[in-house]
């Protein structure tokens, strides 16, 4: 490194630029190598597998061309799972954003025990999914679950509700628990942004006659629009690919009503032992996720 920096003194601007470019290449090389190893290789492998019939236990492989894709796109499973995935993603994302922004606004105020409240809010996010799901299944249990008991005590329901075994309950419950698990991410990002909004703006607005709702829509929301766009994009991608929470909570049931695309991939690969089909599903999912990022990338490019 040091030797590189001590290269012979550059005389012309071009030489200088060349030297900088060389150094730049060298500096990013490790990152490029690592990224290739952990991203490009699995990606290439998946694409390769998706063009073959693969028997999972032996990984015996035979060329299949595009037949996997043809089967997926002409069958009903993919489209049904895609619809289910979209319902889950949009539902849970909307709730995450709603709860997340509301909680961030609350935590940004001068409430007592603010520091404690801020760390408590992060709790669901840091909890292992397995643990969270077990706790929730226990809370929602029809025989001894706290939720049913509380609702009955409040007189809202007469008999225990089957939260996870019927539709639309199962989807609604999954969406709500997903929101509970992941909304802290929104809180952290939004809270960080809120703290950078100059207090003088709110004071000026108060003098200008803006009430609290007007201050929210005219000052807070415009400041949040950037971070909300980014957070929504990230969460959308992650929710779209969410596997463990749904798998552990409902296993895709009742029937296939909560079986989202990642669960289908798992089922294909390890339930039906068709690794090639699973890979084809995965490639399709990746293309869908890529499509989601296009509006964001376009906007970022437009801003520059």
């Amino acid at each position, binding site marked *: 490194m040091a030797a590189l920096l001590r290269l012979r003194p550059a005389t012309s601007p071009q030489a200088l630029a060349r030297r900088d470019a060389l150094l730049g290449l060298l500096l990013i090389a490790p990152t490029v190598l690592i990224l290739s190893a952990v991203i490009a290789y699995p990606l290439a492998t998946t694409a390769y597998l998706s063009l073959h019939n693969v028997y999972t236990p032996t990984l015996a492989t035979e060329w299949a061309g595009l037949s996997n894709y043809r089967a997926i796109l002409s069958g009903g499973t993919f489209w049904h799972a895609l619809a289910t995935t979209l319902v889950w993603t949009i539902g849970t994302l909307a709730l995450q954003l709603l709860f997340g922004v509301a909680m961030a606004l609350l935590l940004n105020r001068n409430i007592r025990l603010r520091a404690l409240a801020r760390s408590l809010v992060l709790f669901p996010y840091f909890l292992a999914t397995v643990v969270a799901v077990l706790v929730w299944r226990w809370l929602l249990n029809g025989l001894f679950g706290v939720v049913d008991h509380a609702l009955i005590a409040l007189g809202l329901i007469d008999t225990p509700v089957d939260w996870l075994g019927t539709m639309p309950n199962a989807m609604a419950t999954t969406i709500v628990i997903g929101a509970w698990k992941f909304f802290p991410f929104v809180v952290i990002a939004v809270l960080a942004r809120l703290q950078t909004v100059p207090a*003088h*703006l709110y*004071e*000026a*607005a*108060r003098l200008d*006659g*803006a009430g609290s709702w007007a201050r929210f829509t*005219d000052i807070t929301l*415009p400041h949040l629009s950037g971070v909300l766009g980014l957070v929504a994009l990230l969460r959308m991608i992650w929710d779209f690919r969410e596997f463990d929470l749904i798998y552990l909570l409902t296993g895709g049931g009742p029937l296939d009503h909560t079986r989202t695309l990642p669960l289908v991939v798992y089922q294909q690969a390890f339930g039906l032992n068709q690794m090639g089909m699973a890979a084809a599903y995965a490639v399709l999912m990746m293309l869908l996720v890529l499509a989601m990022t296009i509006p964001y990338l376009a906007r970022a490019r437009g801003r520059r």
Partner: protein
Amino acid sequence: MAEVVFDSVCKQYDDVVAVDALDLTIAPGEMVTMLGPSGCGKSTVLRMLAGLVMPDSGRILIDGNDVGGLTPGERDIAMVFQTYALYPHMTVAQNIAYPLRKRGVARAERMRRVRALAESLQIAPLLDRRPAQLSGGQQQRVALGRAMVRDPSVFLFDEPLSNLDAKLRAHMRGELIELHRRLGRTMIYVTHDQLEAMTMATRIAVMADGALQQYGTPADIYDRPANRFVAGFVGTPAMALIDGALLFQDNRAILGIGGLTVDLGIRRFRDRPVGTWQVTVGIRPEDVTIGNGPFAARISAIEPIGHETILTLEAGTARLCARVAGSSLAAVGETVRFALRQHRLHFFDVVSGRRIDEIGLAVVDGKAM
């Protein structure tokens, strides 16, 4: 035009007393500058009047009405902040129109008023820009426009010019004076800058440690500082404050400071005690004349400013400054003779720090000038 009254207003933050029993009546149409060291509570006073902070006790009245129960928006007050506080996501036109929009003024009327104001502030070509695309001076004008657009009865300024460079600052100072003359509104203006305070104000309020020290015209503040703090704070270079003693023989006052003895002639002071009086003497640099005179001093520092030179003198144990027109040929270490304008000396009680009033001072002063 509105009269503003602070009636024993107090504000405390945790263990800091930001404003301590403020009593102040500001007559309609005054341009008051608030002057004082950092942290003395100037902004707090302004923010309490605006309704952004609630006083712990006391009342604030605008035109005789207690505004304690009114929100900032209901107080008919506009404020210009040091940071301008322009809404970054709105255009200049939207920024200026915002107070009107929040008050339900119709769109056409809003546009008309924004346009008229933009013309008078010379920002008409900027109306479609956003604040980030403006220079500091332009942002300042937009902030001014937003304050003026709804024609409030009181204007508040919290160090509005301190982010501008010296030249623009002098220019804006002139514009604000002109604005005050044209609108005739009551204005309260917080500043660190003495020049700003002296040139813009019809009245100056000097504060220290949350307490009002003196409220008066710039001439009052400069020529008759109410106490040692005001005397030392206002004026650059600062007034020399030297402890000494006044002795009276018949009605002649003899002043002893730092080894100098000054015969002040016949002087009649209010509340004169019997015997020696421990006082602090205040001497402004312009009241020291160099060349000849009864006293001798060593020059310990020379600061040429261009149109004048500030000499620091050591006479006995006393240190004082003198102003000399133009540049000085004197050298550090040299001994010079000097005289004092005896009728322009200021006296303060050593214990209380309060100004010692002289009976018939104005007449004597008039003759001395």
